């Protein structure tokens, strides 16, 4: 009786996703290991023997890694500060954090083009105060991608961490204090360890997000290709769907790997979380 209702309710969604997403994805993955003569992993062998391809993959991973680290370094203190504010101020700060998150990535990347270009706001400012003489070349470099990605994902990590920090019972901090801990000791011995799960979730979001981001590297990256622009180039400009499918599969696998590894890490760091 109950079962019957349940299936009826879930069926449309399951069917829809299966037909339009799951099957295509499995077919895409399948197509990379099939050719006329049957099963083959030649495509992957070629991919991983090619320094150019590996280079793109590694660059993307490196950019994502740096982005994640910067996001944590900037986001953690800011989140801590916000989590300590009174509820009204906190609400305002959170709104201000979420606002960029919901703003079109095209708009956000474009705004950085205006800022870090040779004649952009940043260079004009630095030159007018005499800090530099020649404009800095930031736009169209990996640095530009990193700046754009940090801007894209910093709100995400702040919001995640604020959520986690809010959930730390204030009694825990008081308990630590009453046992003789200074504020610094409270922070390092209680707050940080308790934030580890949130930090890992945030890092996964940022890392995976950076790894798969398209708009930002496409606009800010210059000749630097990352895995998603490489996928796009192969799929659309070069019409090489075999290679594009291999890249797509690799992206899926790497994404799943990242999530699994980091979740495992979180479990280790916080066995009883």
């Amino acid at each position, binding site marked *: 009786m109950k079962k019957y209702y349940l299936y009826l309710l879930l069926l449309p969604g399951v069917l829809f996703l299966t037909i339009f997403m799951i099957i295509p994805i499995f077919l895409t993955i399948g197509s990379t290991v099939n050719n006329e003569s049957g099963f083959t992993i030649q495509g992957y062998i070629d991919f991983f023997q090619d320094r150019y391809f590996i280079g793109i993959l590694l660059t993307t991973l490196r950019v994502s890694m740096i982005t994640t680290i910067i996001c944590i370094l900037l986001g953690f203190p800011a989140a801590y500060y916000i989590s300590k504010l009174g509820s009204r101020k906190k609400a305002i700060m959170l709104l201000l954090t979420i606002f960029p998150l919901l703003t079109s990535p095209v708009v956000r990347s474009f705004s950085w083009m205006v800022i870090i270009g040779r004649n952009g706001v940043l260079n004009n400012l630095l030159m007018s105060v005499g800090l530099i003489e020649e404009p800095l070349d930031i736009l169209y470099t990996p640095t530009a991608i990193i700046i754009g990605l940090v801007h894209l994902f910093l709100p995400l990590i702040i919001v995640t961490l604020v959520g986690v920090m809010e959930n730390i*019972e204030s009694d*825990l901090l*008081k308990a*630590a204090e009453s046992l003789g801990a200074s504020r610094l*000791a409270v922070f390092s*011995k209680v707050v940080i360890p308790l934030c580890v799960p949130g930090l890992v979730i945030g890092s996964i979001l940022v890392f995976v997000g950076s790894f798969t981001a398209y708009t930002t590297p496409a606009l800010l990256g210059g000749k630097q290709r990352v895995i998603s622009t490489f996928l796009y180039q192969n799929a659309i400009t070069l019409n090489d769907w075999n290679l594009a499918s291999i890249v797509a599969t690799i992206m899926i696998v790497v994404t799943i790997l990242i999530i699994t590894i980091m979740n495992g890490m979180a479990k280790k760091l*916080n*066995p009883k979380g």
Partner: protein
Amino acid sequence: MALFTLQDISVAYNKQNILKDFNLEIEKGKLVSLLGPSGCGKTTTLRLIAGFLQANHGKFLFKDKDYTKVPVNKRNFGFVFQNYALFPHLSIFDNIAFGLRLRKIAKSEIEKRVMNVLDIVNLKGFEKRYPQELSGGQKQRVAIARALIIEPDILLFDEPLSNLDANLRVNMRVEIRRIQQELGITTVYVSHDQEECFSISDQVAIMNNGVIEQLNDPATIYKYPGTKFVADFIGFKNFIKFDKRSDYEDRIELSKSGQVFVIQKDSQMINTSGKTGAIRPDNFLIQAKDTLESPLENGLYGKVKVSTYLGRSYQYAVETSLGDFTVNKEMIEPYRAGQEVILGIPRNQMVLVD
């Protein structure tokens, strides 16, 4: 001599006074509990002593030194929280050792002391577990151990048992009392459970609305509530506001609407000049109006409005010329609603309050 003293303390949140000219002295080695309805300021008082909160004015003296501005982490007072507040990321051992580690005590010494305190709270063998793996009562004991190990000058408990089930609550309170007495630690204990406070404390402070209404040993409070609030709080459900009070050598006569009541005068009764009489539901006498029994002392005609079976006894709501009274009586044949009865008040069962 008092170990510590709160002197004319005032505390306000958002301009609203929570504690007003609050005074409290506690002697070394005693367990004093703060008892009162929700929101009366018990937790606030405790947090003030712990140092989590600063008074707007007033002084906190500890061993005659001014401790008003000493920060929490320099006070060396143990705090046991209602929801345990154990560190979820640390094992039981590390939870308990937390305070010692901050004091840079040698590893072997820490080990010894943790084991010792685990023994005191009956938790040997649990040191490797994590808080999530313990039951409520065990968690509470870890919280106590964690507070005990720093050899605190004062131990503070904020409703430590209210999250536990009834049986455990009774066992734990015996345990807490045992440990407190064994180690002779001065303790402030907050609860709103009257029985809990009475059973555990050397002294009970009944709080209302930011002030202490009465501070006494439990038996005195039970028998001689000093104010109407206290009387009501500890179960004197019936009040009679008399018009006139006349004190004699051995008795006090009270009258209302021409009806005269006589009560015994004893040492406690002299302290108050109150004219409100308070009686517990259990302490009335009751008989049917048309009974052949001997007349009741301080008798009063009334009519049963509602009769409820409580198991142990019947409870009657009785309407009289002096107001409605709640009366409990164990009996086989209960009175029915509508029946006319006579209520009696034994002369030693009514107390006078302000």
